[in-house]
C-alpha cells in the first residue's frame, strides 16, 4: 500500500480544534451543572480516498467525533473544512438550506442494521428516499433504475426493491444501509462500527464490499471500530482516541508496531492474539476509563498511565508531530521506549 506524500497533502477534510460538549442539567429547573466533553480539541486531516481508522474504548468519543464531523451534531467550537473541487467549504458556517444541500457529500453507516432502516418502507423507499429528498430524480422510472443500479453495486438484486427490511439477514441489511449511503455518490462516509453487529463469517463480505466501493468510487472513509484487527484490515492511518481527545495518529503499521503513546501501548497489548502461547508482560490497564463529565487535570490519561511524572499531572499535552506522519500527545514521547505489536509480516 502506498504511503501518502505529505508534501502534496491536500486533505479532503480537515478538522481544527473541534469540540463537542453536551450540557449536564439537573433538577426541576434543569440547571446547568457541567459539561460532558465528548470531543475535546481534536485536530485531524483525512486525505481523499484514504481510510482513517478511529479506535478507542467505548465512551471515548469516537462516534461523537464522526457525527460532529458530518454535522449530525452541531460543534461547540472549532472548524471543519471540506474540499469540494477547488473550493474549500467551511462546514461549521453552513446553515439551513445550504447545509442540507451539502449533506449529500457526507453519509454515515451505523453499527446496527436492525434499527437503522425504516421497517415500514420497502427497500426501494429506504434506499431511494435520499434521491427524492434531494430532488435528484424526475420520474418513478428513474428512481427505480438508480436504486436497482446501487443495489447491484452492493451485491443485492433487482427483485429486492419490493421487499421489506425484516425479510433480510443482518449482512444483507447492512448492504441496504450501504446502498442508501452510496446512492447520493458521497465523497466521504463515516463507517461507525459497521461490522460489529454481524456474524464473523459475514463481516468479511461487508469489509471487502466497503473496500471495493472505495476503489471504484474514490470514497474517503472515517472507519470507527473498537476491533484493532478490523481497523488494521481497513485503514491507511489509525487515530487513537481517549476521553474525547486524540492521543496518537500515525500510518497503520507504524502505529501498531511503534506506538508512542502509553495508552496506545496498553490498548495494543490487550488485543487477543491467535498466535500460540500466552504472552508475557502485558501492559494491562488498571482502573476504568475516566468520566468525561469529570476529567482529570493535566494529561487525561495520567491516572492510569504507568509512566506518569509530575508534569503529566499539571500540564495538558497537545497533539504534536514527532515526524511528518506520526503525531502524539504525550510529554514523554521522546523518552519512552514503548512496546508495539509484533506483526510478523
Amino acid at each position, binding site marked *: 500500500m502506498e504511503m501518502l506524500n505529505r508534501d502534496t497533502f491536500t486533505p479532503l477534510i480537515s478538522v481544527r480544534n473541534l469540540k463537542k460538549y453536551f450540557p449536564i442539567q439537573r433538577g426541576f429547573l434543569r440547571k446547568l451543572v457541567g459539561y460532558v466533553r465528548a470531543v475535546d480539541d481534536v485536530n485531524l486531516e483525512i486525505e481523499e480516498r484514504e481510510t482513517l481508522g478511529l479506535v478507542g474504548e467505548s465512551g471515548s468519543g469516537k462516534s461523537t467525533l464522526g457525527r460532529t464531523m458530518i454535522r449530525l451534531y452541531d460543534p461547540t467550537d472549532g472548524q471543519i473544512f471540506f474540499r469540494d473541487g477547488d473550493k474549500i467549504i467551511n462546514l461549521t458556517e453552513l446553515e439551513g438550506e445550504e447545509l442540507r444541500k451539502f449533506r449529500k457529500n457526507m453519509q454515515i453507516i451505523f453499527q446496527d442494521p436492525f434499527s437503522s432502516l425504516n421497517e415500514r418502507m420497502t427497500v426501494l423507499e429506504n434506499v431511494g428516499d435520499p434521491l427524492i429528498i434531494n430532488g435528484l430524480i424526475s420520474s418513478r422510472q428513474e428512481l427505480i433504475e438508480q436504486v436497482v443500479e446501487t443495489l447491484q453495486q452492493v451485491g443485492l438484486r433487482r427483485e429486492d426493491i419490493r421487499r421489506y427490511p425484516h425479510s433480510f439477514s443482518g449482512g444483507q441489511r447492512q448492504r441496504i444501509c450501504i446502498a442508501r449511503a452510496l446512492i447520493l455518490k458521497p465523497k466521504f462516509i463515516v463507517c461507525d462500527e459497521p461490522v460489529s453487529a454481524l456474524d464473523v463469517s459475514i463481516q*468479511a463480505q461487508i469489509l*471487502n464490499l466497503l473496500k471495493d466501493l472505495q476503489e471504484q468510487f474514490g470514497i474517503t472513509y472515517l472507519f470507527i471500530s*473498537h476491533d484493532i*484487527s478490523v481497523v488494521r484490515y481497513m485503514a491507511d492511518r489509525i487515530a487513537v482516541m481517549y476521553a474525547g481527545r486524540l492521543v496518537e495518529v500515525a500510518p497503520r503499521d507504524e502505529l501498531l508496531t511503534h506506538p508512542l503513546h502509553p495508552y496506545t501501548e496498553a490498548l495494543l497489548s490487550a488485543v487477543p492474539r491467535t*498466535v500460540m502461547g500466552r504472552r508475557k508482560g502485558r501492559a494491562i*490497564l488498571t482502573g*476504568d476509563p475516566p468520566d468525561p463529565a469529570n476529567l482529570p487535570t493535566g494529561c487525561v490519561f495520567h491516572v492510569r498511565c504507568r509512566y506518569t511524572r509530575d508534569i503529566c499531572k499539571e500540564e495538558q499535552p497537545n497533539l504534536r508531530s514527532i515526524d511528518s506522519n506520526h503525531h502524539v500527545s504525550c510529554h514523554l514521547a521522546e523518552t519512552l521506549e514503548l512496546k508495539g505489536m509484533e506483526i510478523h*509480516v
Partner: protein
Amino acid sequence: MSLELTERVIEVNNLKTYFYLDIGVVKAVDGVDFSVDRGKTLGIIGESGCGKSVTVHTIMRLIQSPPGKIVDGSIKLYRFRNNELEVVDITKLDPKGKEMRNIRGKEIGMVFQEPMTAFSPMYTIGDQIVEAILTHENIDKKKARERAIEFLRRVGIPRPERTIDAYPFQLSGGMRQRAMIAMALSCYPRLLIADEPTTAVDVTVQAQILDLLQELQEEMKLAIIFITHNLAVVSEIADDIAVMYLGKIVEFGKKEEIFNHPLHPYTVALFRSIPKVEGKLERLVPIYGNVPSSYQIPEGCSFHPRCESAIRGICNVTLPDLIDVGNGHKVRCLIYQKVEV
C-alpha cells in the same frame, strides 16, 4: 476409582435439545459430545444460532419447556459427596427440583454476557451474592457477607467492604463482570460456565477479565466451559476447542491442533474470513452464502451448501460422523472418512 475419572468434572454424551415451535422443529443442539476435566478449559466457538448457548443452558437446565426439550443424551456431572465420588445425570433431574437447584450455583457457576441484565437492578451486589451463598451453604449471614467481601476483593474490586453495598448500575461494565464472576465462584463450584463473558466489554477490560479467569482457574482448579464467537479470545484461554455449526460439533481438538492444523472446511473458511492483527495483510475470503435458517437445516452435511470442497451426490446425502484422525483431533467431514458410495 481411576485418576482419570476423579479428574473429570462433566461429560456430555449425544446431547440433543430441540425446540418444538408452531412453524417447525428447531434442532438447536443435535448430538453433542464433550467432556471437561479439572483445571481445564473447553472453548466452544461458533456463529450465532450454532447452538453453543443452548448447549450450556441445557447443562444448567435453564431451557424453557415447552417449547424446549431434551430429546436424547446425557449430561454426567462428577461430584463429591462426603468424600465419595458420585455421578449424576443432569438430564434426568427436574429442572425446578431441589437437586437441580442445588447444582446450579453450587456445583456449576455461570457468568453471562451482559452483567447488567444478569444482576437484578433492585438489589445491591452484596444482597445477591450473599443470597447465593446462603442458599447453598450452612453458614450465618455475617459469615456469608464476609465471604462475599473476600470474593469481591479477590476479583479485583477496589474497596470491597463498601462496593458490596452498591447497586449494579453504580458499577462500570468491567466491575459488574467481576462482581458476576465473584458471585459465580462464591460457593466454590467445580465447573464454571462463561457464556460470552467479554463480548460486551472493551478489549482492555477483556484482557483483565481473561487474566482473572485464568488466575482463579489455577487457584481453584476450576473446569471452565468458555463460549465465544471470537477466535482470538478462545486461543488465549482454551485448552480444547469445539467448533459448532448448526447444532453439531464439526471439529474438536487441542487448541494448538485446531489453530495450526484446522481440518474441517468450515473451520478453515472461518480462519480465512477473519481479519487478523498479525501476519501478512491479505484480502479476506468470505464464507459463501449465509447460515441457513434453523428450521431448514440442509440434508447430509449441514455445511455442504457453503462448502468449497463439497462433493455433489455425497455431501448432500450422507451425514458424516465425528471421527478421530489422531491425537484426539476429531472432525465431522466426509473428506476424512471412508465412505461406501
